[in-house]
Each structure stands twice: as C-alpha cells, then as structure tokens.
C-alpha cells in the first residue's frame, strides 16, 4: 500500500530465494534489528531486560523449537520443557566437567544432546500417530525430570538439583549484566531464527509440511517418512535445548528441574497456538502475548482495581483467560496471530482493491 513493488522483478532463481523479496521489507527488518541491538540497550531498564525482554526472547526460541515439530512437521508434543531441561543440564555439565570450555560451545553441545534425546523419544513416531504420540512426549516429560531430580550427579550433587549459570564471558567481555544478558540472548535468538527460516524453506522444510498435510502422498512421492520425522524431532529438540540453556543461564541464573515441568510445556504449546502453527514470526508474536498478558492483567488489578484481587485469584483468572483465548484462536483464527499479520500484508498489497 505505502510502498511500490513495480520494478522489483527477478532475473535469476537465486534472487528469488531471498527471505524478503521486496526491498522495503528488507529495510524494515534491518531497521527492527538496529532498534533491538542498538536503540533498546540505551533506553531499556533492568526490569525490562530481566522481566520482559529476555524471557520473551527465550520463549520465542522455545516456541520456534516446538513449532518446527508441531507446526511444520505436524507431530504433536507435550514434552517441550523436557528437552529444554536436557539442553540446560547438558550445557551445565559440559561446562562444568570440560576445563575451559567456552560457555557458548557448551550451549551448543547442550543443544546437540537435546537433539539426540529428542530423536530417541521421537522413535515411536515411526509407528504411531496423533494422540498416541502424546504418550511418547509425556514419557519424555516425566522421565527426564525424574532423572534430573533423582540423580544428583547431573546437578553436581546439589541437594535440591539446582544448577547455576556459568560465567557469561566471551573474549573476556562480561555479559552478566542485564543488558549483556539481553544482547547475548538476542544475538543467539536472531541467529537461530535465521537458521530456522532457512530450514523451513529448504527441501527438508517442504518434506515436513508434506508429511504434515498428507503423509500417504508424501510416502508415495518418495519422501522418507522416518528420516523426515526423526529430523523434525532432532532439530526441534536442538532449538528447545538451546532455549533451555538460555532460560536457565541468561534468564533465571539458577534453575531446578521443576522449572521445566509440564506447565512449561503447555506454556510453549500455547505460544505456538496463539502465535500461529507453521510460522516463524508467529512464535515471537505468541511469546510476546504470553509474556505481556499477565503483566497487563496484574497492572490492571493493581492500578485500576487498586489490588482488590489477591495474587492467587489473579492467577486463576489468568488461567481462565488463557484457556478462553486458546479456544477463541482455535475457533476464529486457527493459524494464530501470524495469519492475522499475513492477511494484513496481503490486503495492503492489493489495496485499494479487494484482491
């Protein structure tokens, strides 16, 4: 609507593969990055970084992880938090037990460990579909947490299974300040975001969607279902694993296994549903929603209702509202906020005409 497309045509296929076809979109995105990396660090305060921005980023990443599995490959999972836990605890142990291992590397290794565990619990998906798969992912959820609580080795014999963040130092620059942790998280999330985008646009991404939309046809045109599904589990868990490390070490600082319990998995699932299945952007929208709504509610009850509602009740209302929202989205906009954005963009492309 506001910008012209005329004259933006492609003369080779490589150009057509770029994520933002129109230069205006490209610029808009760069601007966004600039704001996130340069502007916000200056204006943001510690509360914003620690209580809103960092968890927002980490949950976006987690949602991304689950979205790859559920939104793109169509495999439902209730075990997301378990894979986050694996990532976090693995990273912690790598960093703890390998002398002088840069923590970024240990994050990465944590991610890979999560991927392996993910593939293990994904194996049943080769024989079973739909709800039946829930069993496998729930098994992961409970088994993993049980392991981390029962075997204190994983938490370096900490009585309550708590693990603590390593020194966040890259090239002897300390990232443990709120701004530092924000920038660190942002950097990792942006990189992984691009990675995810190029995965879903690659052949693998297409195969995932093919399996999701019609697995019989996918098999008939020669897509290897087992490979496709297991890769989905592996890669999804890799993203979740990294998100776990960030959750534990750049957001909370210390975490116990039950920081990754079933409710966390649900929270991530909600992010995906509200944000939009099968969309990268959606995870960020969904995460923002899930983070901001409670804050909004509590502010309302604080300021408008002058704290008439006690926190316990507030939590209940939150639950009700979230439940209602989930149902609302499933009924009205099954493809979530991302779809809303998509529709808006499409409408404005043809504005002032209808189509």
């Amino acid at each position, binding site marked *: 609507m506001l910008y012209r497309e005329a004259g933006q045509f492609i003369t*080779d*296929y*490589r150009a*057509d*593969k770029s994520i933002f076809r129109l230069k205006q979109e490209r610029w808009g995105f760069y601007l966004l990055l600039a704001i996130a990396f340069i502007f916000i660090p200056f204006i943001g305060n510690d509360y914003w970084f620690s209580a809103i921005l960092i968890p927002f980023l980490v949950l976006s990443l987690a949602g991304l992880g689950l979205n790859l599995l559920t939104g793109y490959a169509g495999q439902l999972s209730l075990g997301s938090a378990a894979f986050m836990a694996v990532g976090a605890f693995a990273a912690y142990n790598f960093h703890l037990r390998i002398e002088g291992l840069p923590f970024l590397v240990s994050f990465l290794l944590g991610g890979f460990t999560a991927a392996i565990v993910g593939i293990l619990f994904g194996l049943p998906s080769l024989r079973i579909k739909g709800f039946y798969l829930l069993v496998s992912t729930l098994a992961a959820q409970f088994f993993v947490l049980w392991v981390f609580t029962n075997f204190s080795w994983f938490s370096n014999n900490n009585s309550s299974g708590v693990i603590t963040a390593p020194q966040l130092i890259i090239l002897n620059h300390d990232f443990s300040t709120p701004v530092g942790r924000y920038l660190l998280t942002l950097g990792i999330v942006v990189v992984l975001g691009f*990675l995810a985008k*190029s*995965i879903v646009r*690659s*052949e*693998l991404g*297409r*195969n995932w*969607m*093919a399996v*999701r*939309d*019609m697995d*019989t*046809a*996918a*098999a*008939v*045109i*020669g*897509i*290897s*279902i087992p490979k496709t599904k297991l*890769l989905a589990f592996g890669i999804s868990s890799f993203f979740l694993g990294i998100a776990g490390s960030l959750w534990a070490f750049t957001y909370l600082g210390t975490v116990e296994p039950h920081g990754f319990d079933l409710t966390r998995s649900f929270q991530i699932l909600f992010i995906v549903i509200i944000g939009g299945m*099968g969309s990268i952007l959606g995870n960020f929208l969904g995460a923002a929603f899930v983070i901001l709504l409670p804050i909004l509610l509590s502010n309302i009850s604080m300021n408008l209702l002058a704290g008439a509602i006690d926190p316990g009740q507030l939590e209940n209302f939150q639950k009700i509202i979230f439940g209602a929202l989930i149902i609302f989205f499933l009924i009205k906009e099954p493809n979530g906020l991302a779809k809303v954005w998509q529709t808006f963009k499409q409408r404005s492309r043809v504005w002032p005409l209808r189509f």
Partner: protein
Amino acid sequence: MTTNEHLLSLNNISLSFKGVKAINNISFAVNRGEICALIGPNGAGKSSLLNVINGVYQADEGEINFDGESKKNMSPHRSAQRGIARTFQNIALFKGMSVLDNVLTGRNLKVKSSWVEQVFNIGQAPNDAVVQRKKSEEIIDFLKIQPWRSSLVGSLPYGLQKRVELARALAAEPKLLLLDEPMAGMNSDEKAEMSRFILDTQREFGTTIVLIEHDISVVMALSNHVVVLDYGKKIGDGTPDEVRANPEVIAAYLGTKH
C-alpha cells in the same frame, strides 16, 4: 515371464480387506510407452489395484514385475525410487503449500544436496536449488499453470488441483505414471485439455501411463490398451476395439450406465 517390452506385469495378484476379496487373481502386462486404461464399475477394484502396484497396499498373493525386477510387494517409498509416480482419486495435494512447492516436493528424489548443505547454502546446494527450481518450472510451464505458481493449492478450483497433482507426479520424471480418475468431475473442455496433457506426457517424456477413467469416449481416444475389471476379476484385456467388441465387457460395463 516379463519380456523386455513389458515395463510392468502383474501375475495372479489377489488382495482382500477383512475377508472381502477386492482383487481376485488378476494378471496383465503393460508395454513400455503405452497408455493402458483400467475400466470397470465402481468397486471393481481399480483403485485397489493401483494401490497394490505402487505399494500403498500389500498384495496377499501374486507378484509384480516392474522394469525387470520381480517383487511380491514394495513399499511406496521404494516404488517411488524405482520410478513409479501417481495421482489419487480424491486429490492428495499438500494443501498448506504453494503450487511451486508442491511440484518441488515431487522432485525430492532428484535432489543431490543434503539438507545440511541446503540449510547453510553450501556445497552442491546453491546449484542444486537452481536446477530443481528450473525443472519444476518446466513442468509448470508444460501444464500451463504459471498464473497460479505461488498460490496455495488449497485455494485453487478442483480442475486446477488435478493438474497440479499431475505436475507433482511428472516432476519426479517417472517411468510409470498411475492416474486414478484424472478427469473425474471435469467438464468436457477440461477433459479435452487434460487428455491433451496426458498424451503430451506420453509423447514428450515417453512415460508409460496406467489410468483409471469412467468416461469411455476418453478411454477409447486416449489408450492403446484397455483392461476391464468387474468385482475384482479381469474380464477383458486388449486394444480398445477388441475390448469394445468383447460381449462379457459389454454386459458387465458398457451396458450399464456410468
């Protein structure tokens, strides 16, 4: 028993669901480069037969010889690798993907680069991507669906979806193409167009085609070879004219309205 000019031959195939015989001891052979039509009343077992040929169903008895290799049964994946592509009676496209992406998935077996190479756009990936895109575009051009290249298949009219599904099958550059009622629910113009596409496919790519079709006029116009099924049995097999002359066929099929 398969001589060289037979691309596909079925020997005494039988299949049953829960005791009900869907296919009863059927044998026939398809020559290289021919268009072979399977006809017969609804429930004659035509679709089931296609499903057996490319391994969606596993035959209870009998064996399939494809391209000089005999198998009792094959997985769909294996049969795709060996060059069998197909379309489905009720369209089985990937509704959430664009036309181009659907056609691209059809080429998944031709892709040279590994997924890692593709994700990081290294190694063979950059060239491979271009090659696959070009091939897909050629198919899109061949079936004249350029205007819808980037629209979601779910949003396209029925006739077009049928064409896109054919495109996806052709993208695999198959030796054998199985078409399950490619013209079901089309008007005469669309049928004519689709027939033309099918003929061109056979001529341009030398693809052997086995198709199921109810419209006898289309069958007679298109096919070099007709096999007639009724209640899971083969009751006719030969050139269109031979079949048209076959009294049993007339009784079982041509007599009844379809």
